[in-house]
């Protein structure tokens, strides 16, 4: 951890010196204290952002509002939509329906676009969909090696790890080691299928229904389904996942 913090600082100093290219469009990036909206201790790229980025974004927003290029209330609504309305609870509804309705599951796997809109769900970055099914012999995992494509309207915005170079680089070459970092050991008799989402198709993994959930209702099942299980980096267990943000469904 200490070593990693040091190298992060080193990178930031390097950035301070790199007054070229895109950054030169406005002021040069200047180092400073991290801006953080949350109290947590970790070591991510986003932690070491120059403090003046806060000011620069504010200045850009004011300029764009003043010119009539954006409506401030629309910006507030977009932030609110992705912070509070859209999230993994939407994908979870699709998964739970597929678990309780075999005919729905068949439609979901063969014509996801139609099956998802049939539930009144979807939207931008979630209209051209492919749903891939985990079975006792197949484990699917989704990545976007070239950027960070993700079904925003069904899972919300992706976590930092999904967008990180580490995940994007390794998921295709060593998926089993990546899954191990999520605590998931995939047995030798199981095929790992990695889906590199390079086009305008977005992917949702249909995880396996955990044992011991036979008596749960559809909405109780939906509450067990986690974001990571729909990306394919974890399984669903009958206890849910305490490590993921919960949203009201």
């Amino acid at each position, binding site marked *: 951890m200490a070593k990693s913090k040091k190298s992060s600082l080193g*990178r930031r100093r390097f950035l301070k010196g790199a007054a070229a290219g895109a950054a030169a469009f406005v002021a040069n990036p200047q180092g400073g204290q991290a801006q953080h909206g949350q109290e947590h201790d970790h070591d991510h790229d986003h932690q070491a952002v120059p403090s003046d980025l806060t000011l620069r974004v504010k200045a850009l927003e*004011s300029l764009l509002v003043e010119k009539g290029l954006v409506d401030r209330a629309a910006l507030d609504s977009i932030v609110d939509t992705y912070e509070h309305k859209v999230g993994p609870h939407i994908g979870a509804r699709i998964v739970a329906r597929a678990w309780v309705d075999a005919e729905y599951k068949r439609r979901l796997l063969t014509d996801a676009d139609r099956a998802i809109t049939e539930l009144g769900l979807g939207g931008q970055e979630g209209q051209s969909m492919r749903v891939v099914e985990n079975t006792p012999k197949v484990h699917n995992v989704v990545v976007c090696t070239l950027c960070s494509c993700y079904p925003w309207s069904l899972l919300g915005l992706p976590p930092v790890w999904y967008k990180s170079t580490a995940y994007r680089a390794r998921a*295709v070459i060593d998926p089993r080691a990546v899954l191990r970092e999520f605590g998931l050991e995939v047995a030798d008799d199981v095929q790992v299928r990695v889906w590199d989402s390079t086009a305008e198709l977005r992917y949702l993994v249909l995880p396996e229904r955990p044992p011991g959930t036979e008596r749960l209702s559809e909405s109780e099942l939906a509450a067990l389904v986690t974001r990571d299980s729909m990306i394919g980096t974890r399984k669903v267990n009958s206890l849910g996942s305490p490590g993921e943000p919960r949203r009201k469904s």
Partner: protein
Amino acid sequence: MNGVHDVGGMQDMGPIHIEANEPVFHARWEGRVYALNRALGAWRKWNLDNSRWTQETLPPAEYFTMSYYERWYHRMLKQLIESKLLTRAEIETGKPAKGSAKLTPPLRAEEVIATFTKARFQGRSRAGTPPRFTAGQRVRARNIHPPGHTRLPRYARGHVGTIESDQGVFALPDTNATFQGENPQHVYSVRFEARELWGEQARPQDVVYIDMWDSYLDPA
């Protein structure tokens, strides 16, 4: 372009940091950058492929040191200037140019939810050039290194796979990114054996599926 964004198969990128109870945005500015980007998209001065391409052409050393939304911020500045929605001077001073007219934003607050989250069944387009391949056919990803935008990842080039399915017709990013036309083509899910891509170190049972445009492929 064989650029910094094309990272599939790279090694030594460090551990994957998994954050428990991660917030959607880690700071207010991140949410504002996201929202500005989506709201500005409504001017239709650029498309998603152009956004990706603009981001890929950020200076490589900076690309790796920037956080995700920092990349978005710098990409947005480039697009605002290139599309002439803003001038460099306006960004530097933070003031509209003298005499510039006040415009009407194309996206209003009351339209946000419907625009971004309303379910609409569109169906897949089948228009455009006819498909050259069908499911089950063996194909080779072309060994090409275009200097511009492409969605053919480096790690797949030259390798043989199998068409798993035809996913319909989509605009070709390679030309759409620079407004040279949509050139709609069929996109296929192509299955590659992990060993075909990575050799002996990969498990023989594992596979990688990649979405590929028709012109990225040759018969094998």
